[in-house]
């Protein structure tokens, strides 16, 4: 029997979103409960109570009727931000204890002359980074055998110091795992209670600093994730869940609890990583596979890009100032949200963000004591938000307080509050446009070839302005926008990354053979792993990629290739894929030059069937949905224009609304600027288009 429901739970900093897909009713419903960071299962309990009330059946019955319960969590992220991970020790090659702290000798751009910008907090202090005499060379041979006593000494120190989680990472362990394996044996024997992370198992790729740093971040987060996953697993078991809970990873896929503990570092930026899945899904009815998603919440603005169904990934990047190797969905995050504060900088220029009024005190218009002007205040003064309040009046807004806050920047600039509001709106939009360029133009893509998908509660007020600035002519804005990430998790597949390193020049048969063998080895492991989890040949998929470069280059670029045997004949295809990607990224290729591979990676998918999007019925005429008019400002002069306001809930499939207009949904307000037309599609999304060619740069 197919289960009736699928449950998605996305725990954010302030709210936890719940999505329940009901196969029988053909509906997808969104609920929100306050997050409870100190006791995460509490928020889940509260949310389930809301769902139970809505469906009129007890939580146990609902959970037992779910094919899958899926959870995205920020506990790992929060632990990394607040530096509250486990007490960690590092065992490494003697002489290389400090690569974590040397950080390639770099200080972040923009802070070079700032005397107060602090050094990154070390996840492992220097005295807990213990060097071991051992050495493997660049060809994988052993130059110095490992000194077991050094490992034992390290363990004794760790035991004395109360270390609960240990990372092992040796130079060149990716080419010869013998020493790391032996060290792991000793640690397991001497510290049976400690959690262990082995660099060459977690992230078998060349680059010692990246591997050690990734292993340390993993070790640091492991105790936190283990505790969290333990509590959630147990909670759902008690409720009678059919399957183990699936957790959402920052690579955009699902994993079981054990994997989240062993590979905690995969959890760190999972929140926004489901946006691309959701974006593709809501665009599927329109056959669009080039999608940029933008998600504006209270404090931040997250951007992702998917080209031809493939989402941009990041590898080997600094995340929260820590070098992380494992692939993550590329999420460009800016400090631009509804709570972002407008201020005047030391030069006298108006700026917006990254400081935010957060949830407390929140925007001035919330009337909770905030006095600084925020984006939400600007949107209220511009007439975009309903002065009677948000969430159907549950959250009242004060226009007066918003205006008073805006005066704080308007007066020194010598402009009106309305002009200042439009100024903040313009500047925050431009910040977002510059962010979108980072995922598009900088990755070799023209944003005008993409559909813009809006997610998050605050995005819809900005979406037509953003598209106008980018020169994008099609927007898809789902009614589910404010819970789109939670929804995205419920339609994601299980996904594991398997990697190996193979630094070889592509000019000889043994090199081809080696790459071929490595791919097959890691995939055999991955398939076994997924089969144990109940997937079959039919529901398992493999995608391959290679990190390649021209001999002499320093940076690699990742190239997707098919799953064919790699040999003297097929290698031409591989090289061609590389030349082409190099051209896309950097405008040129060097076909006459030697090419080398550095790392290989296989992504293993366990495909899961997807709940369907609901079908909206045709509605009455749009006049029925017209709530009234209010003055809204669409230009820098700050003059308002009488603008119709529609109730989104009363619109049916096919409804077409010409801008300027405002559509109010319960959890979001959509601003349609002049020149744009919104049509509500039967799949539950507004398709907003502009026939005129807009600008963009």
């Amino acid at each position, binding site marked *: 029997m197919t289960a009736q429901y699928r449950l998605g739970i996305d725990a954010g900093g302030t709210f936890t979103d719940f999505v329940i897909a009901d196969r029988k009713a053909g509906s997808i419903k969104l609920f929100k409960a306050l997050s409870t960071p100190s006791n995460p299962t509490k928020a889940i309990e509260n949310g389930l109570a809301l769902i139970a009330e809505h469906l009129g059946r007890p939580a146990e019955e609902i959970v037992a009727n779910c094919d899958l319960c899926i959870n995205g969590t920020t506990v790992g992220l929060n632990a990394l931000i607040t530096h509250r991970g486990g007490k960690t020790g590092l065992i490494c090659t003697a002489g*290389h*204890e*400090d*690569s974590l*702290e*040397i950080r*390639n*000798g*770099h*200080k*972040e*751009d*923009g*802070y*070079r*002359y700032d*005397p*107060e910008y*602090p*050094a990154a907090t070390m996840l492992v*202090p*220097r*005295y807990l980074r213990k060097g071991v005499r051992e*050495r493997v*060379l*660049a060809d994988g041979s052993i*130059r110095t055998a490992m000194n077991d006593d050094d490992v034992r000494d390290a363990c004794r120190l760790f035991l004395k110091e109360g270390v609960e989680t240990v990372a092992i990472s040796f*130079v060149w362990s990716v080419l010869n795992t013998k020493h790391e394996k032996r060290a792991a044996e000793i640690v397991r024997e001497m510290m049976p209670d400690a959690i262990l992370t082995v660099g060459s198992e977690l992230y078998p790729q*060349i*680059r*010692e*600093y*990246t591997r050690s740093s990734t292993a340390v971040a993993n070790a640091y987060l492991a105790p936190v994730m283990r505790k969290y996953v333990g509590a959630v697993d147990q909670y759902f078991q008690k409720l009678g869940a059919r399957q183990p809970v699936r957790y959402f990873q920052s690579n955009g896929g699902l994993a079981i609890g054990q994997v989240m503990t062993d590979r905690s570092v995969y959890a760190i930026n999972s929140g926004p990583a489901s946006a691309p899945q959701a974006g593709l899904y809501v665009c599927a009815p329109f056959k669009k596979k080039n999608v940029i998603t933008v998600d504006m919440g209270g404090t931040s603005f997250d951007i992702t890009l998917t080209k031809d169904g493939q989402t941009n990934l990041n590898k080997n990047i600094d995340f929260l100032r820590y070098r992380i190797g494992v692939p993550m969905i590329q999420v460009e995050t800016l400090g631009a949200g509804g709570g972002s504060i407008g201020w005047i900088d*030391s*030069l*006298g*220029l*108006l*700026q917006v963000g990254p400081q935010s009024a957060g949830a407390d005190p929140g925007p001035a218009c919330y009337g909770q004591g905030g006095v600084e002007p925020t984006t939400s205040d600007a949107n209220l003064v511009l007439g975009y938000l309903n002065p009677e309040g948000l969430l159907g009046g549950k959250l009242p807004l004060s226009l007066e307080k918003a205006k008073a806050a805006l005066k704080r920047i308007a007066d*020194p*600039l010598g*402009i009106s509050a309305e*002009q200042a509001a*439009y*100024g903040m709106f*313009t*500047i925050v939009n*431009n910040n977002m446009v*510059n962010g979108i360029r980072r995922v598009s*133009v*900088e990755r070799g893509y023209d944003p005008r070839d993409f559909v813009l998908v809006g997610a998050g509660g605050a995005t819809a007020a900005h979406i037509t302005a953003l598209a106008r600035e980018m020169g994008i002519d099609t927007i898809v804005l789902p009614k589910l926008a404010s819970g789109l990430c939670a929804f995205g998790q419920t339609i994601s597949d299980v996904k594991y990354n398997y990697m190996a390193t193979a*630094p070889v020049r592509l000019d000889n048969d043994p090199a081809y053979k080696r790459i071929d063998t490595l791919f097959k080895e890691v995939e055999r492991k991955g398939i076994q792993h997924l089969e144990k989890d109940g997937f079959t040949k039919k529901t398992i998929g493999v995608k391959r990629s290679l990190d390649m470069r021209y001999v*002499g280059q*320093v*940076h690699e670029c990742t190239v997707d290739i098919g799953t064919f045997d790699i040999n003297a004949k097929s290698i031409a295809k591989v090289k061609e894929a590389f030349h082409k990607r190099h051209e896309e*990224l*950097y*405008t040129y290729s060097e076909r006459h030059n030697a090419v080398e591979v550095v790392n290989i990676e296989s992504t293993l998918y366990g495909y899961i069937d997807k709940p369907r999007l609901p079908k909206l019925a045709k509605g009455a005429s749009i006049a029925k949905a017209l709530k009234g008019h209010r003055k809204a400002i669409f230009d820098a002069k700050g003059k308002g224009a009488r603008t119709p306001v529609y109730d989104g809930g009363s619109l049916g499939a096919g409804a077409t609304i010409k801008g300027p207009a405002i559509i109010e949904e319960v959890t979001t307000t959509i601003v349609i600027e002049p020149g744009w037309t919104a049509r509500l599609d039967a799949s539950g999304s507004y398709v907003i288009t502009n026939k005129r060619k807009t*600008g963009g*740069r």
Partner: protein
Amino acid sequence: MKPNRKSKVDPITLSVVRGVLETTQREMTLTLEKTARSSVFNLAHDYSTALFNAKPEMILQGQDIPIHLGSLIPAMKAVARYFGDDIHDGDLILHNDPAFGGSHAIDTCMYKPVFYKGKLAYWTVCKGHLTDIGGPVPAGYNPNAKEIYAECLRIPPVKIWDKGKPRNDVLNMIFTNMRARRDQEGDFNALIGACQVGERNLLAMVDKYGAATVDTCIDELLNMADRHMRSLIKSVPDGTYSGTAILEDAGHGLGDFEITATVKIKGDACHIAIKSPPQVPYFINSYEGNSHSGVYLGLMMFAALPPPYNEGLYRCVSIDFGPKGTLCNAAEPAPHMNCTTTPMETLTDAVRLAFEKAMPSKVAASWGHANGLNIAGRDERSGEEFVTMVLATIISGGGATPQQDGWHAVGPECCFGALTSGDVELLEYSYPIIIHRYSLMTDSGGAGKYRGGSGTAWEVEPLYKDMLCIGFGEGRRIPAMGAAGAKSKLIDTKVGRVELKRKGKTDVERKNILQTIQPGETITNMNPGGGGYGNPHERPVDKVVWDVKNGLVSIKGAREDYGVVIKDAKSLSVDQDATNTLRGGAQ
């Protein structure tokens, strides 16, 4: 600071234009970094990109590596002057001559005039450190050069594109005089690509907002920077302040030199006069273009301004580099290749010290000076020759600030954290070496209430056969200058040096070396730590103990440098009485 209400500029458009300029610069930078071959480009970030208006005034400098700070300003002006009204749409100008506004000749600049509606409107400019620039020694650094003619190919302003048509004859002549032609062509393409990306973005901006509006905004951005710097200068009491720093003899045998900076503050204007000895027949002379960067870095250590940087910042600053023919105002034919580190860092220190005297509690300490190693030999694995500057070898410690300890491993001073060094595995993969050690060094950070950052040690052994090691640098006797009364007692551990381990014997060298080592022998290149800030006896005891626990300060260092007596090496318990006595009761 209050915005100027008299300004006619719409404040919103102003913020937007500023954002577009920054994005433009960022995309130029990215183009350079990702496509260049030279690792000095793409790892060391030894390049900069800039936008100029038609005058030409610098309206934005990107990638704020101090070596290039402001040095494109005199270069751009010299180039524009040279061609006068012979500048046309589609021209592309190449230039590197230090005696004509450039910095050091291996930093090669590309200038693209941007025309809007038939009129010269802007310039997009970039500059990058190539892997070679001709001359007798690979990579340009020739310690035996007595004249600039023995160092490199000098390129005066020359058009490599004329009205959109590449001048292949000129390019061919240039490449013919450089090593590794393929790499040089690649790096030239990267420079050209960056200029074109900049041009495309600027034109789109002007199309959108109109030339007049954009120019008004740019003028206002320059004015704002001017007002900002003036307000900072105004906060300094009127007077004359002078700082002298010593440039050590790096092995040339000409002795130590003194560089003095005299800073005169009057109201919101600042005049900086430099005094340096006559130029020398060794590659440490600095022409005026490079000396600009040295002075501006010293100024920036006082001003501590966040980006963006434009020429408006320097309007209230006038500089006298001293008579032509001196170390900091070199004249042809002085050899100069080492100038971006030596004497630039000493020049910066002199300016920094003058400002510290003016504002004693505001100015941070000096950073460790660059002590680098180039390696060369034959790679048995491929049969190919190799030569490279190892960036990982020049990572020194950052200076402590009035607010916090100096960063570890973030120098040298002339790079100020802009550099990134390569991974140990990538280095061992690319070169036939084994890196035994890459670590922070005990007692290397300058003592102070806030400790200077630790320097680094990099120990290397050739894997198969002999390897030539070429060491360069400075700061091997005198440690990085502390601030606000910081002073160290243990000096030897805080300065740059090279350790040579051979047949069980260790030799320490404190000069520029040229040594061949064999498998089984190692060279350790050690970089100085940063200077401390404030009286080391005021550093809290628990912080000193924590540093000892982490091996950043030794027990001896705790006692000598900080006056903290640790009585038990295991528990690190402190002898309070002895500590109080040593610290003179100043706990």
